[in-house]
């Protein structure tokens, strides 16, 4: 259900054939069936052409490498746009499946006009084409940077020392070298994998690990200054990391990010943001725990300001108290607001998700988990990444002030938890046992005990019991022998669980192509090395034949999500006669959606525009209240009553209109007068 299957298949067969003919390295590893940037843009055009006018394609930006970043606007056009959802795919450019997900989402929406009749969708499938194009380039390696040059190592040249495919297999892996100051050792249970030696357990490191390549610029460092670039998903303004090689010089310095930011603010009807990327806010809601968020109930006034304002700095104040204190100091006509105080006192930005917002994040997360269970997903997967500083996900929540959700589509499953039944036997207990007591333990318990002790596999329970029974060894002797054996492996020494899962997946589902076995190589400066390690993308990109089922599983939940968008309506309106042509107008506004209008963060940052309720009627005079009343916030599934007092000259109708770009419009007429 994606790009015209026959066209794609044709292209695929052609490219595979060509690859074989040209003996292109990399065909064995990069899965050719994911759409490359040109195919993505072609696919976007095709989906839009088939949509019967529902989709309009725009060029959002051009990457430094010269590729168009296209945006699909799906839904009705008109004077008053519908509330909209902004969907971005693959902003870090390193996850092909996320681009496929965004494309597929667009296709699904276009094929069911009901999905875009009341909300619009603004979809950008390929947010970082430069980085994404690396998936289709040899030698293959993962790098989120776009193609703007950057002098990573701050020397006399730029982009002069990238990776080198020394073993010619078309992918960049690792090199391990035996070195006196090496810190890595192989994992005992899976020696293809490496782990850090644990000096506290008396281990000495063996290997140093480098990325595959040579020291192109002779400065003693390897592959430290490759081509590019700025990670688009690190170039957004919230918690931007200055002077980091990958974040860009300043927020919005990358045109891919800047145009996206500009587009978002130019479209205040955007009520929700969705990212297909490395995070998954549906599984793991956004995390807090950062230092720096100011509590508006406990504000400390800086000394310098306290002196100037004549205020006691030894205690804290609430925002309200400070506002009341400052208001009389201002020239008449000027009203104080929180923003002014916050900026004058240098209070800083919010850096942790608001508590009230976490309520809906947690609730939606359990719903999502239930949904997965109902679809037969029972195995637990490894956690997604946390949102990183300077990312789109963070900026959309903290700066745009809308609910943000995300999916990473695929991750490795966690291994089945080992039955951790304790044998209950200790070495001390064995020392004191008689041979009968030992035999009485039973094979199962002894087997568990031997496993716990990390005994070599040839020491089966049967063999050990046999030794004791035959008198060849006493339990005490056995115990002292076991004391001499190396201690059982700690969890760290067993190797990284994710890597173990990854290599197992490679063996089972990728014909071993996810991992290159260590092979010797004669390196020009490092001498005898071995080249090997995980193939790029083998940890985050599923085999292409899995994509369809993954998207069929996860994408429908996106449509469940948008059902929760806030929706403001006029629930009721009436005019109560007070006599002498004076009427009390009562209007009940309701938020029929689950999500609040706006989020708590949107309330705090004041970016989402208020809804405006307008009263219109000829001959109406306002006694109390005004014609245009802003409504700044309304929680989900809640109602609010607004009242006015008007004088009606004569009989007529009063039109009550509700207008909110993000949460919808409504209108009601009531009779008045006469």
């Amino acid at each position, binding site marked *: 259900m994606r790009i015209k299957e026959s066209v794609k298949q044709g292209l695929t067969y052609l490219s595979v054939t060509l690859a074989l003919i040209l003996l292109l390295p990399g065909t064995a590893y990069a899965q050719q069936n994911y759409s490359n940037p040109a195919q993505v843009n072609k696919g976007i055009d095709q989906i839009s052409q088939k949509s019967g006018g529902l989709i309009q394609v725009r060029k959002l930006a051009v990457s430094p490498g010269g590729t168009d970043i296209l945006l699909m606007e799906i839904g009705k056009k008109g004077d008053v746009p519908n509330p909209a959802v902004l969907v971005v795919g693959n902003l870090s450019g390193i996850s092909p499946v996320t681009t496929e997900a965004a494309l597929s989402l667009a296709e699904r929406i276009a094929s069911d006009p009901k999905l875009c009749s009341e909300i619009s969708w603004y979809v950008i499938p390929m947010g970082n084409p430069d980085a994404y194009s690396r998936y289709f380039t040899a030698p293959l390696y993962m790098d989120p940077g776009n193609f703007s040059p950057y002098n990573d190592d701050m*020397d*006399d040249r730029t982009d002069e020392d990238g990776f080198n495919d020394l073993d010619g297999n078309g992918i960049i892996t690792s090199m391990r070298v035996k070195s006196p100051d090496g810190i890595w050792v192989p994992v005992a249970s899976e020696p293809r994998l490496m782990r850090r030696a644990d000096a506290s357990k008396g281990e000495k490191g063996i290997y140093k690990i480098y990325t595959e390549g040579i020291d192109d610029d002779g400065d003693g460092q390897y592959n430290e200054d490759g081509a590019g670039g700025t990670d688009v998903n690190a170039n957004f*303004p919230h918690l931007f990391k200055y002077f980091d090689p990958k974040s860009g010089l*300043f927020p919005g310095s990358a045109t891919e990010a800047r145009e996206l930011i500009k587009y978002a603010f130019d479209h205040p009807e955007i009520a929700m943001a969705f990212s297909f990327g490395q995070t998954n806010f549906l599984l793991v809601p956004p995390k807090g725990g950062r230092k720096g968020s100011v509590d508006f109930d406990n504000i400390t006034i800086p000394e310098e300001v306290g002196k100037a304002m004549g205020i006691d700095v030894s205690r804290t104040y609430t925002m309200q108290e400070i506002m009341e204190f400052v208001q009389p100091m201002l020239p008449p*006509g000027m009203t104080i607001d929180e*923003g002014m105080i916050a900026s004058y006192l240098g209070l800083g930005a919010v850096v942790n998700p608001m508590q009230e917002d976490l309520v809906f994040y947690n609730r939606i997360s359990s719903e999502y988990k239930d949904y997965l269970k109902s679809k037969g997903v029972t195995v637990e997967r490894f956690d997604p990444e946390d949102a990183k500083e300077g990312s789109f996900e963070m900026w959309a929540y*903290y*700066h745009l002030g809308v609910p943000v959700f995300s999916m990473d589509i695929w991750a490795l499953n966690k291994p089945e938890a080992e039955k951790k039944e304790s044998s209950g036997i200790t070495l001390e207990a064995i020392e004191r046992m008689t041979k009968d007591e030992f035999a009485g333990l039973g094979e199962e318990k002894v087997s568990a005990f031997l496993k716990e002790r990390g005994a070599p596999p040839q020491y089966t329970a049967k063999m050990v019991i046999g030794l004791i029974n035959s008198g060849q060894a006493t339990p005490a002797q056995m115990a002292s022998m076991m004391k001499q054996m190396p201690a059982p492996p700690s969890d760290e020494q067993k190797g990284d669980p994710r890597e173990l899962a990854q290599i197992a997946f490679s063996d089972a589902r990728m014909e071993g192509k996810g991992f290159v076995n260590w092979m010797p190589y004669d390196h020009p400066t490092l001498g005898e090395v071995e080249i090997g390690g995980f193939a790029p993308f083998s940890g985050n990109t599923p085999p292409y034949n899995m994509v369809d089922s993954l998207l069929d599983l996860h994408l429908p939940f996106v449509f469940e999500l948008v059902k929760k968008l806030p929706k403001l309506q006029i629930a009721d309106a009436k005019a109560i006669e007070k006599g002498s042509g004076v009427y009390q107008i009562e209007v009940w506004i309701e938020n029929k959606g689950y999500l609040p209008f706006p989020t708590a963060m949107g309330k705090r*940052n004041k970016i989402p525009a208020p809804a405006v309720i307008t009263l219109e009627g000829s001959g109406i005079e306002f006694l109390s209240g005004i014609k245009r009343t*802003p409504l700044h916030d309304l929680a989900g599934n809640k109602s609010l009553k607004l009242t006015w007092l008007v004088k009606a000259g004569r009989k007529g109708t009063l039109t009550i209109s509700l207008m909110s770009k993000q949460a919808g419009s409504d209108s009601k007429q009531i009779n008045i007068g006469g």
Partner: protein
Amino acid sequence: MKKIFISLMLSLAITIISDLYAQEIKVPLRFDHYYTYEQVVEALKVLNKAYPSLTTLEEVGRSEENRIIYALTINNPKTGDPLSKPGIYADGNIHGNEIQAGEVCLYLANRLLTNYGKLDDITQVVDRNVFYIIPVVNVDGRVHFFNDANTPSTNRGLRIPVDDDRDGLFDEDPPDDLDGDGNITSMRKRDPHGRLKTDPEEPRLMIPVKPGDQGEWINLGQEGFDNDGDGLVNEDAEGYVDGNRNWGYNWAPPYVQNGSGLYPFSGTGIRAIAEWMLKRPNIIMVFAFHNSGGMYLRGPSVKAAGELPAGDIAVYDHLGKNIEKIVPGYKYLISWKDLYATYGDFTDFTNNLIGSYSFVGELYQVGTETFDGTFIEQTDRSLVMAGGSNERERERLKFNDHLAQGELFKEWTPFKHPEYGDIEIGGWVKISTRLPHPFMLQDLVHRNASTVIYTAQNTPDVSLEIYEVTRLEGGLYRIRVRLHNRNAMPSVTYMTVKNKLYPLDIVTVKGSGAKVVSGGKLVSQYPEKIEYKEFKPEVQFCQVPGSGKVEFQFLISGKGSLEVNYESKKAGKRRSEVILK
């Protein structure tokens, strides 16, 4: 009949021509008036025309209302390309009402160009540096400040509509010039229940009533009426986006700091200037002129950033101390500490992302409006914030009367307000309070342009010398290279080194018949200690400190000519050669 007609035409022509002459902008420029935006552009054009080889005039970018932001570059091409010299950048008027900053920049250009070749100091400072001057950053603001009615403080922001009062409408309720006098002043109304009464010492002022007193006036605030009928007056004027909060370093959104714009560099002109400056990484000294208060501020802009590196503070202290003497009464201060925290401001951007030293010059001290036999009053800043005591106001009004012949204060005049009925309108006029009366402008522009010229004399001046060549055994040569900087500013700011903003200065040694066997920096002279570079000894990196030196030692094998090159983003390029025999 014909005679009368001809003489009429003649007198008309003379009137027109003399009017034209009165407005004509020519070199040398005059500083007894404020320049409109159009006159600023004309001034730049006449300077460029009069000094074609020394100047370049270019369009940096456009404002929201599509006006051109101009930059004048002053460089002597005979002493090298602009990018090969330390750059001094000066701009002004990022806040639309802070107009005298434009005159300071024009004066700087005028002073340098009209005295080039006449005064040695000027000739030298122009030959050794390049000057980048953008007299008006907020071109829309300047135009609207001149053309619209304003207070001395309004029309500060960029022309980006913002719904300041969050009622769904944008910029719908600005101040209104009810009496059409070109100023936005104050309104008051007679009211026996009012909290104010006429100041017995000065009838143009009001004082709060004490318990038991009879009230006289209510202060109705800024001139205007409720344009959008929401019960608030003048609550949503242009913007509010403050051009000096919209820069991309340490930017914070509007709820943290009012007026920052929706995202960094959302202002078209601001972004254009940033990109223009980033293409000129040789800029080492930046001045941003504002009003008012009489200060030269250095960063950091927020306390959380921590103090600047000691090496940079030393440079600032040296410059600041002397600036206080060039403009007596102005104080050299720290931005966040002595003023207030600012996020996303211009000088934080230039210090951190261009790698320069930067001063914000707050021009003009209203305390010079005295009437007590002194030249300057000592104003307490907290009073300025809280609205001023009447003591100063009374004195200023005497200044207004006797030095400005009433030009600065609009007398209270009755007016019929559409909603409030009989009121009075009066107060300080637009060209006052933050702006010197033109008779004081000449002094202001000369002194403040002189601070820029003074710092330009302190930009790094690096010389390269191969000061020792010794032949060693085995065909090896030992050469020693010295980079010496005679001026106070280092060739790279310490902040740039700390941030790793860009690579340090590069020293390269090469010769067609020679190979650099080893090389390193002399980190200590007595006793002698050399820090050798393990890889690529023929390429060395350094910062040449202010009034200091850096020395290198190289061991070379081979013979023939050997070339040593020094390349610095700010301090230019130097070259020296030696023959190894």
